Structure formats: C-alpha cells, structure tokens
C-alpha cells in the first residue's frame, strides 16, 4: 500500500510537507512504516482541492487534507479499511461524494487534444501511431466524404487558426477549394518564431503523423496533390523525425500515389527556413519557399487565390493541423462543445518565465488566466507577486492582475489589448520592469523587421530609441505621448502583420503600467529596480559593520570608509556592477 502526497507548489504552500511528516509519524506509531510507503509526488492538477492525498492501490483521493487529518487517514483507512468520508470530494452539482481517482478527472483543468499522443507514442515508429488511430480519419474522409462534406465538418467545428490570426480554418479551406486550378498546394507553417513558444516543435517531435495526416486530409478537401512543410532549420530533431515519418508513411502507402486504394495522390516535402521571424507571415513564407527573399507582400491576393508558384495555396499552422483528425473522427459537434462561444476547442500554451511549472499545457478555450498560472502552472516562483503575463509574443500585449479572471480566448484577448498569438505565455513577477520588457520585444522586432516598408523599418527603430532613452533616465513626459502616437501610426501604416502588431507591447504596457513609465521619466526611478542607469546603490549605515569587504571588491574604488566604521558609496564613480551587494554579508547594501 502507498500513500501519495501532492508535493506540487500549490499544495506545498498549504503544508503538504507537514502532512508527509505526520503520516510517517502516525505509521511509525502503529508500526506500519515498513508496510506502507509515503511518497511525495508532483502536481495532481487539482490545486483548488489541495492538498491532495491519494491512497494506492485503492485509488482513493482525499482533498483539502490538513496535517491533523493524518491520524484519521492512518487509523481509519489504512488500519480499518474505512474511507474517511469527510475528506472525500463532494460534487458541487450532484452533491455526491467522489473518491475514485478516475472520476476526479472531470475536475482537471487540462484537456489534451493536440498533445494527445505527445510523449505517448514513439514518433519514429509509424506502427505506434497507427495503434493510436493515426490515418483513420484520412481513410474516413477518402472513402466516406466529399471534399465539401469534410470542409463543412471543419467549418461547423468552429476551429480557428492557431498560428495567431484566429481565422476560420474551414472557411480558409473552402476558399482554396473554390479557386479552381490544375495545381494547388497545402502548406504547413512550422516556422515558430515567438520568443518562449515551443508547442509546434513538441507536436512535430512527439506526434509528426498527426500533422502529415491532416495535411493529406486538407489536400483532399481543397484538391491539392502536394504538401509542403516550412520548418525552421533550428529545429533539427523535429526535422529528423518529420523526415522519418514521411518516409514511413510513404512505405505504408499512406502518402504517395493511390492512397488507400482510393485514387487520391498526395505527397509531402520539407522546406527549410533560416529562422527569420517574418517568414511566419504566410506571404513571406511562400516567397521564402520559392527561393525569393522572405518578404511579405500586400494581401489580397491571398494565398488561397495566388500562393506558392502563383497557385491556390492553403497555409495552416502545426497546431491547427493537429486538431483535424480528432474533429473528423469525433465530429464537429464534439469539438464545438469544448471552449467558448466563438473560440472552440483547446489551446496549447507554452508557460515560460517566472512560473513554477514551466512547460506545455493544453486547456479548453475559456480557461482563466488565474487557472493557468496559479493552478496548472503552480504559481509564481519563490512565492513572489504576479505582475503581468505576455501573450502573443512580440505581437501581443500583457495581461495584468485585473485580467486574472479573464477567460482566455481569441476575442477576449484582443479586447484586453493582447492577442492569442501562437500560445507563448511569459509570466513576469514584481521584479520585472515593464518598460524594459517592452524594450526587449522591440529589440526583437527591430532585429527581425525585413526592412521592406518604412513604418516598420524606421518606426520600430525610433520606438526602440525612445524606450532606450526612457530606461536611461533621459525621457520626458512628452516622450510618452510620442511613444503612443508613433505606435499608432506604425500599426496603421505597416505592410504586414509584423509591423502592424509590433507596437502592441509598447501600447499595452503604456496602458497597464502608465505609472511605471511616469516614474521613469519624472522621478527618474525604476520601481522594479531593473534599469541599471536609474539605480543607485546605497549603504545602510546602521547595518554596515565596516568589514571593508565591499570596498575591496569594488572595481572602481567608489566605496570609502574606515575599518569598523560605516562605509559610503560615491554615486558619481559607481558603475552599478552590483559586486559590493553580492559580497556584503550584512544586507547593508540596497538598491534605491
């Protein structure tokens, strides 16, 4: 018999350590310590009900356990085999108590559709994929459905593009289907470029066949015979696994000519990107595949009319494709029952930054930011205070404390001044300076701007300069107005999505953290203590014992003082390297 105690951060804050200790003590008191193991585990995904104790092999889950409950669990459940009813979970609607772990699943926040096979199958063995129903949806579409019929299912499911824009996938396919041509293309956009986003990579590494199958289904629907995957060369493992998967699918007759004896021909090739962010924009991506410069062009014409080699082309993101097979197999109604009114299904988020459970999660649309960060994500590192979460990468904006209960979906995020983007979610705590965060993202867009249109090429550079100015303490209140005006002009006049969205981090931090900008330009202080030029190191004389350790480590001799007397830092010499603060054993040096 085993007792599993949740050691996830959420439960840990609620004394799971004390529960562990008490359980062990109670077992020892009853001379059971050799028969029953007490194990500390990771998060159960039931943080709202924590701390959790699970009894194995009975599979009984106790919720909201208190350290004092240890005795009852041991004496009642373990010794007498009687469930501790009072610690079982009561369903809020049916009022029935639930004890079995399997029945608790409904209360778990994560639902995996896109990631259904990631980490489960061997991606280099097509047999494992087939055992998990890969290519079954393709067979169904090819033998039982017309292209119009299949497109209707995708349309009715309410699936929207997961790459950022959120355009209806079914509608996109329909447009490509209606544009008649002897040659059409299906393109998979695997040029994942947002800093901190890696969901596409994980899907391609963990379940490449889900993407290949969906591309073939798309090919049948829009009457295309060729698929192209545009993937960045920085993803060598994903590329290798895709190559293996394509080769195996061909060997099994699941790609190539006369697929499953239906007369449908479809094959897939890989095209490599050199890691330019702008190539995630579909027109730039197509140009890059054609061997031209990766520069966007004006839409219309949309790729569905004139795309790769001037032929109708349908471009979808990896995650969008990974949703297709389950929709075909389980139906449009099933998919549209998940999520919110206008955003259906689930979304994969890559949690990064100052959050405990860094990694990939998949939740139904409409899950709140609070659930994502504080339940699934395990909260903020080192118990610090949540400040903001950046969604949509360099094209998105930040969500703050007031957005914590916002259900995350396409439209809500846009209304909150951010965007879904590809699903990167970077969490920031009280120590992060929002002006610096905006500057960081601008740094990225300035680097990644292709330079074709002036607003993006020159405007973003100027925006970056202004932010640089402000973080150096040289900004004025007029600069804040200038920042906003210039941002709006760049958004209005840029050629493609990159420029049209690049000022978003500036606008959203200006709106949500205006006080912080004002502090930078008026009192010349950085409230988070991040902007080096605005910091001043200061010795608290009451704490200083005059050990001289700081003075000895200072590389510019800015610290003076007698032995055993409080020391002083000369701010005009100090280069703010922080060496003294690290060296001080008495916490006498602070940043002001």
């Amino acid at each position: 018999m085993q007792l599993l105690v949740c050691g996830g951060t959420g439960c840990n804050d609620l004394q799971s350590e004390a529960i562990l200790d008490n359980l062990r003590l109670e077992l020892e008191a009853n001379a059971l310590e050799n028969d029953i193991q007490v194990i500390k585990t990771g998060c159960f995904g039931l943080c709202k009900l924590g701390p959790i104790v699970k009894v194995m092999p009975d599979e009984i889950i106790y919720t909201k356990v208190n350290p004092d409950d240890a005795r009852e669990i041991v004496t009642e459940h373990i010794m007498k085999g009687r469930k501790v009813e009072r610690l079982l979970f009561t369903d809020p609607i049916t009022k029935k108590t639930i004890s079995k772990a399997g029945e608790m699943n409904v209360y778990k926040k994560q639902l995996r559709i896109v990631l259904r096979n990631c980490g489960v199958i061997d991606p280099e063995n097509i047999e494992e994929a087939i055992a998990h129903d890969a290519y079954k949806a393709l067979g169904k579409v090819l033998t039982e459905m017309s292209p119009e019929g299949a497109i209707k299912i995708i349309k009715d499911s309410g699936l929207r593009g997961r790459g950022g824009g959120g355009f209806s996938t079914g509608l996109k396919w329909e447009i490509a289907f209606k544009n008649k041509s002897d040659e059409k293309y299906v393109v998979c956009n695997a040029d994942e470029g947002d800093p901190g986003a890696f969901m596409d990579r994980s899907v391609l590494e963990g379940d490449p066949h889900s993407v290949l199958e969906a591309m073939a289904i798309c090919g049948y629907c829009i009457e295309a015979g060729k698929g192209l995957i545009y993937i960045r060369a920085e993803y060598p493992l994903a590329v290798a696994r895709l190559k293996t998967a394509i080769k195996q699918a061909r060997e099994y007759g699941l790609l190539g000519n006369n697929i499953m004896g239906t007369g449908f021909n479809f094959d897939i090739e890989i095209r490599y990107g050199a890691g330019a962010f702008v190539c995630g924009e579909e027109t730039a991506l197509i140009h890059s595949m054609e061997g031209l410069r990766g520069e966007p062009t004006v839409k219309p014409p949309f790729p569905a009319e004139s795309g790769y080699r001037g032929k109708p082309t349908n471009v979808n993101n990896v995650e969008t494709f990974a949703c297709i097979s389950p929709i075909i197999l389980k139906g449009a109604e099933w998919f549209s029952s998940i999520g919110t009114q206008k955003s259906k299904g689930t979304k994969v988020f890559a949690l990064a930054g100052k959050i405990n459970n860094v990694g990939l999660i998949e939740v139904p649309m409409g899950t709140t930011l609070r659930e994502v960060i504080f339940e699934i994500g395990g909260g903020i590192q080192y118990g610090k205070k949540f400040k903001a979460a950046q969604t949509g990468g360099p094209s998105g904006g930040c969500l703050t404390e007031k957005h914590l209960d916002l259900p995350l979906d396409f439209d809500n995020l846009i209304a909150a001044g951010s965007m879904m983007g590809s699903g990167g979610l970077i969490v920031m705590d009280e120590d992060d300076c929002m002006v610096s965060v905006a500057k960081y993202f601008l740094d990225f867009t300035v680097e990644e701007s292709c330079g074709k249109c002036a607003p993006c090429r020159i405007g973003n550079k100027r925006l970056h300069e202004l932010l640089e100015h402000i973080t150096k303490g040289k900004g004025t209140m007029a600069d804040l107005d200038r920042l906003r005006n210039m941002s709006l002009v760049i958004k209005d006049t840029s050629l493609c999505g990159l420029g049209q969205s690049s000022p978003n981090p500036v606008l959203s931090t200006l709106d949500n953290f205006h006080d912080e900008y004002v502090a930078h330009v008026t009192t010349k202080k950085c409230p988070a203590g991040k902007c080096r030029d605005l910091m001043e190191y200061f010795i608290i004389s009451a704490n200083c014992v005059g050990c001289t350790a700081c003075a000895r480590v200072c590389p510019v001799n800015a610290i003076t003082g007698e032995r055993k007397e409080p020391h002083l830092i000369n701010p005009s010499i100090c280069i703010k390297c922080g060496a003294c603060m690290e060296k001080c054993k008495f916490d006498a040096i602070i940043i002001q």
Partner: protein
Amino acid sequence: METIKSPADLEKSKAAILARMHGKEKTRIRVHMGTSGLASGAKEILEFLTLELQKRSIDADIIRAGDLGYCFAEPTIEVKRVGEDPLVFGNVDKQKADEIIEKYIKNGEYVDGILPVNYRTI
C-alpha cells in the same frame, strides 16, 4: 511490409500491431526524448536504462517518445508494469533511475518524484 490499400487494411494492421504489442506483456518504459528532455540528459538515462536492465536481466521494452510537456521536471520517464497503470517519474538522474529499477520495476515499490497525470485526454 505490405502497403495499406484500404481503410479496412488500416484497421487490420492496427489490430495486428496491438496484438503484437500486447501479446508479449512485459514492463514498458518510455523515455521522453523531445528537445527539452534531451537537453536535460534523457539520452544518458536511455543508455543507462538499456545497459542496466540488460545487466540485471530484466526483460522490458524501452520506447523513445516525445516530450510530455513537463519541462520543469525533465528528464521524465514513464514505467508501465504489467497489469498496472503507468507511472511517470520526473527529474530522473542515474541515481534515481537506479532506484526506479531496484524498487519500482523489480518490486512495484513507489519512489519519490512521481508526476501524477494532471490532464484529461481524448
């Protein structure tokens, strides 16, 4: 191998694959080897497990899978003992892997570091 010529063929080959997988019931170990797993040392764990299981004469299948998404606890491995639900272990180093072999794989005794399934799937 024979190519799949119809959806019925696909079903047949799925059944054959499943029969082959379940025919020889034995302990199955999945090492999660996506980029984040590999970056945290999943490859050494795979090599260690392969070698040690052979040395200790334990008959088990080792499968290389993609990442589970538990980047904060990589490398992760999943062990499925015959007739039991699979268990995932996080932050596996060689010492932990050794403990998992000796305690869990051999005797079904749990060890610290279990990552419960915190999601539903379809």
